[in-house]
């Protein structure tokens, strides 16, 4: 364990240095050169295009062939920069020509030229993400049209790393001809002809440019992942291609069930490039396993003991489960090494919340044998389903698949969105198994029976759009100019109830007016990359004189939990948390912790300080980052940044009131009997306060950030509020006449009475004066 930690520190330090270097290089700084990339886009690149036409002159737009393009690539001079190609370029070119997609370059070009929309299927490792955009580049010649080629990626890291790779392949500087654009970071220049970006980013651009006029070709990569943004983009592009016949679309998918894409895009032509794969032998268990985690650990150890050389990939569901399994496996493996001279086994973990440099570690080679001629070492990667499609890890020969993953689920009736462990789909299981055959024939061990595979698993994983709260998507669609939400052509339309709920929430938040049109508040809220409730809370916070504080709380709510509670030191961790505790609730506690984190005392040695106080440095730093980015948007939108003086006794009250402005729909009232028993307003669900809360008194009314779905329903991150505030701040939602008779209604009535009495007194005293 000890040397693992020191390893990771080394890794992080090395990584950070590298990042610093690239950050300080002024040439790479994308911000200074082109403040208004949108308007002057490619303005001066046309002249460059003219004088570098030497190589491009041989090419005629949309008439090129693979041989012609290869000639350009083999030239001595780089047509993009007019500089001679480096030797590295040619060595990369050689490996590029070996990629499976290269063999079908002519076929691809023909189909691309013939059709407006093309569906391209290539398994991971076929080279589609890096090569296809380059093929397009040499045929589409976007610089001659003063346009660009865009290639979307579901993940930011992928957009960055692929852009970097392609810049190297084309022998250009990243950020010039090839760039990337992800949220809060624009690494492009007026020269840019190929732009990698997240799908969400392209959607954001579409909000201000409904026809996406800057692009001549748009490539949607990893479309099989069916992220929310990709789905919306596909629906949008279907409309855009009608308005813009010159725009070409390529949908790239890694799975072979592309017929659905084809049908959706009016029978667009399909080109499939086989990946480079080896046979994978599938094993099932004869009987269902009683404990899949334990079975997975046993299987990994057994593979290590009995199977030939080759790395193992184990799929589990969440961070905690993964770390736990990793610990157990390394302990057992160490014993195996001691007792029976097994080869060394190194475990790596991989999950979304792991920082990028830690994620990179999975690419380290397997450990060498302990002595020359000894048993070969092996690495085992324990991962969530992010290793299923997106990441390509070479050397995996064995896959262990328990058949579960954590999936987002949204129930519009009780308005709960949560991550739940549920069985994967058949398609997922096949993807997972395919990971074993990347380098040589492999084996996949499924920890369930063949019968269970056939009967218990659904065919396809449901796309994100069917599993999420749609309120921010609806806001986006409205901003995209789509008013007829009912007939918007989505590949998988969401359930009507889900859309209804989203509209309703937006109406209560005053983002939509009573006719369903976007209000100015809604327009403003859509500028924030946040949940509408959070955005509205942030926008209205200046009215409560606490925008600084609400901004911090918003940032803290959008990052993973900042309080750490290791199993071995729970008591100590709770004591430390109590240092920051505010009796009125968890939101204020978060704020206190953040303020302490920003104090000079803590800033002296952040790492130690966070460690001592059981806080997650990573979460706090990313909250800091999010805060800075949101601050930029707030300043751009001219929202006032103010605070109530800390000495004012209303300091905390103002913050609690401001919280109500966004979260008035997530409120629960205490039940008359039962400790910690609450009932949510309007949806009438019985809930319990999550044990982690610091709420010191039994508050009658609480607002909560999160509804946690387990066998018991919990509300997490709660803050005490007053019904008077709710009636005052959200009168339409708390229209007492709409509440059924009962405890909640009578309590609201009493509060309304108090409110009117107070008003009357104020009016009276005013009169007297």
């Amino acid at each position, binding site marked *: 364990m000890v040397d693992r930690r020191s390893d990771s520190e080394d890794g992080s330090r090395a990584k950070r240095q590298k990042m610093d270097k690239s950050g300080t290089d002024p040439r790479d700084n994308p911000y200074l050169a082109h403040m208004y990339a949108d308007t002057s886009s490619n303005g001066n690149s046309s002249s460059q295009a003219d004088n570098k036409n030497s190589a491009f002159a041989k090419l005629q737009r949309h008439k090129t062939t693979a041989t012609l393009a290869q000639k350009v690539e083999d030239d001595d001079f780089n047509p993009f920069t007019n500089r001679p190609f480096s030797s590295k370029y040619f060595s990369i070119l050689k490996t590029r020509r070996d990629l499976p997609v290269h063999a079908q370059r002519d076929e691809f070009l023909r189909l691309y030229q013939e059709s407006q929309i093309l569906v391209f299927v290539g398994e991971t490792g076929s080279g589609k993400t890096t090569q296809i955009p380059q093929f397009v580049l040499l045929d589409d010649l976007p610089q001659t049209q003063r346009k660009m080629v865009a290639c979307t990626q579901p993940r930011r890291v992928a957009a960055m790393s692929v852009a970097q790779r392609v810049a190297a392949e084309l022998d250009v500087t990243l950020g010039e001809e090839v760039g990337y654009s992800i949220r809060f970071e624009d690494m492009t220049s007026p020269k840019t002809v190929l732009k990698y970006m997240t799908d969400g980013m392209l959607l954001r651009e579409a909000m201000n440019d409904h026809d996406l006029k800057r692009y001549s070709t748009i490539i949607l990569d990893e479309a099989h992942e069916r992220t929310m943004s990709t789905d919306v983009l596909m629906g949008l592009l279907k409309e855009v291609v009608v308005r813009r016949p010159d725009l070409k679309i390529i949908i790239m998918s890694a799975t072979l069930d592309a017929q659905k894409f084809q049908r959706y895009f009016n029978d667009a032509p399909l080109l499939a490039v086989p990946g480079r794969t080896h046979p994978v032998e599938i094993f099932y268990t004869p009987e269902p396993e009683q404990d899949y985690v334990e079975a997975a650990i046993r299987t990994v150890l057994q593979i290590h003991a009995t199977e030939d050389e080759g790395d193992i990939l184990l799929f589990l569901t969440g961070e905690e489960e993964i770390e736990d399994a990793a610990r157990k496996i390394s302990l057992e493996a160490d014993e195996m090494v001691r007792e029976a001279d097994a080869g060394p086994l190194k475990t790596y973990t991989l999950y979304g919340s792991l920082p990028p440099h830690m994620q990179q570690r999975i690419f380290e080679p397997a450990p060498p044998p302990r002595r020359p001629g000894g048993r070969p070492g092996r690495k085992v990667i324990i991962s969530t389903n992010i290793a299923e499609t997106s990441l390509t890890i070479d050397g995996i020969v064995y896959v262990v698949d328990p058949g579960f993953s954590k999936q987002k689920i949204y129930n519009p009736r009780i308005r709960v969105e949560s991550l739940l462990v549920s069985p994967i789909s058949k398609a997922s299981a096949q993807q997972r198994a395919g990971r074993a055959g990347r380098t040589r024939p492999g084996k996949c061990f499924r920890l369930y029976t063949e019968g269970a595979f056939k009967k218990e698993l659904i065919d396809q994983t449901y796309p994100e759009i069917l599993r999420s709260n749609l309120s921010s998507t609806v806001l986006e669609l409205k901003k995209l100019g789509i008013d007829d939400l*009912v*007939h918007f052509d989505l590949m998988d339309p969401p359930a009507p109830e889900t859309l209804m709920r989203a509209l309703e929430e937006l109406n209560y938040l005053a983002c939509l007016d009573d006719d369903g049109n976007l209000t100015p508040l809604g327009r403003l809220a859509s500028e924030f990359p946040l949940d509408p409730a959070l955005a509205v809370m942030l926008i209205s916070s200046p009215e409560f004189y606490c925008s600084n504080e609400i901004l911090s709380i918003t940032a803290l709510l959008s990052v993973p939990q900042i309080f750490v509670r290791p199993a071995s030191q729970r008591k100590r961790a709770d004591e430390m948390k109590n240092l920051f505790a505010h009796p009125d609730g968890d939101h204020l506690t978060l704020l206190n912790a953040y303020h302490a984190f920003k104090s000079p005392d803590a800033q002296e040695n952040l790492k130690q300080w966070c460690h001592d106080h059981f806080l997650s440095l990573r979460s706090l730093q990313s909250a800091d980052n999010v805060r800075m980015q949101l601050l930029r948007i707030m300043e751009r939108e001219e929202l006032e940044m103010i605070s109530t003086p800390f000495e004012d006794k209303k300091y905390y009250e103002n913050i609690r009131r401001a919280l109500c402005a966004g979260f008035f729909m997530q409120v629960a009232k205490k039940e008359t009997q039962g400790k910690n028993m609450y009932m949510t307003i309007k949806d009438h669900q019985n809930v319990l306060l999550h044990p982690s809360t610091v709420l010191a008194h039994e508050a009658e009314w609480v607002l909560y950030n999160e509804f946690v779905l387990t066998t018991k329903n919990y509300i997490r991150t709660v803050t005490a509020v007053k019904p008077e505030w709710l009636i005052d701040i959200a009168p339409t939602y708390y229209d007492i006449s709409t509440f059924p008779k009962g405890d909640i209604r009578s309590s609201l009535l009493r509060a309304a009475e108090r409110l009117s009495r107070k008003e009357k007194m104020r009016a009276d005293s005013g009169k007297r004066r």
Partner: protein
Amino acid sequence: MGLAAPRKRTKISHDPNNTNWSRSTTGFGHKILSSQGWTPGSFLGARNAAHADMFTAASASHIRVIVKDDTLGLGARSKRDALDEPTGLDAFKGLLGRLNGKSDAELQADQRKRDDVKLARYAATKWQAVRFVSAGLLTQEKKEESTQKAREPGDIESSSLRTSEEEDQKQSATEGTNTETEDSKSRERGGKKSKKDKKDKKDKKDKKDRKEKKEKKRKRPESHCENETATPSETERSVRERRPLGRQMIRGRHIAQKKKALMDEKSLNEIFMIKS
């Protein structure tokens, strides 16, 4: 569920599915959707979409998932549940059968089958199932090991017994506690494998002793390739469950030693020395 089971008390809400909301047609969302031409019961999405037949049920209503808070494997049912099957309906089934004109003999056979399943399930839940790997039919061999394996059903069991088992299997396919699945499968596949399978088996048995297993493991890779059915968890499982056999094997070795001793005076002495 027995009295000793941990009590789980959860209060179920008055309206856990909030049907109150879903049935109402006066909400803002409902109003907007209707005004855009949506009718209750229809899907969203383009009119006459070309891909409409590929929509899933999730486009009609939200996805429902059973909350999972344990590590029970896929398709497995918790041990306790296996006995919770309603069995009281059996008598009723017989009555229905008679009404449907089945002969008494048939009915009796049916009843018998059901009883067998019940018994098997009872045994399987009470004591953990012991699993075996078939090694084909009994052949004359030089090795003495076969005596030890006589216990295993694959070798000498009569064919009638086997078929009845297989029928049981069909009936209780969903149970997941069936002892013989693996057994019969391997029987079908490698009916005539003899020696190699036996070697495998030996290997596997040895594994159950944690300390012993390590040396044998070196042999495992090759055997793994030969025997398709030998998935890791299966063997691991047998490690867990066949513990009694370990003792038996040690005893077997003891007996063999004694036998040898009878033939060899030296070792005879050895034994006596130890004893005294």
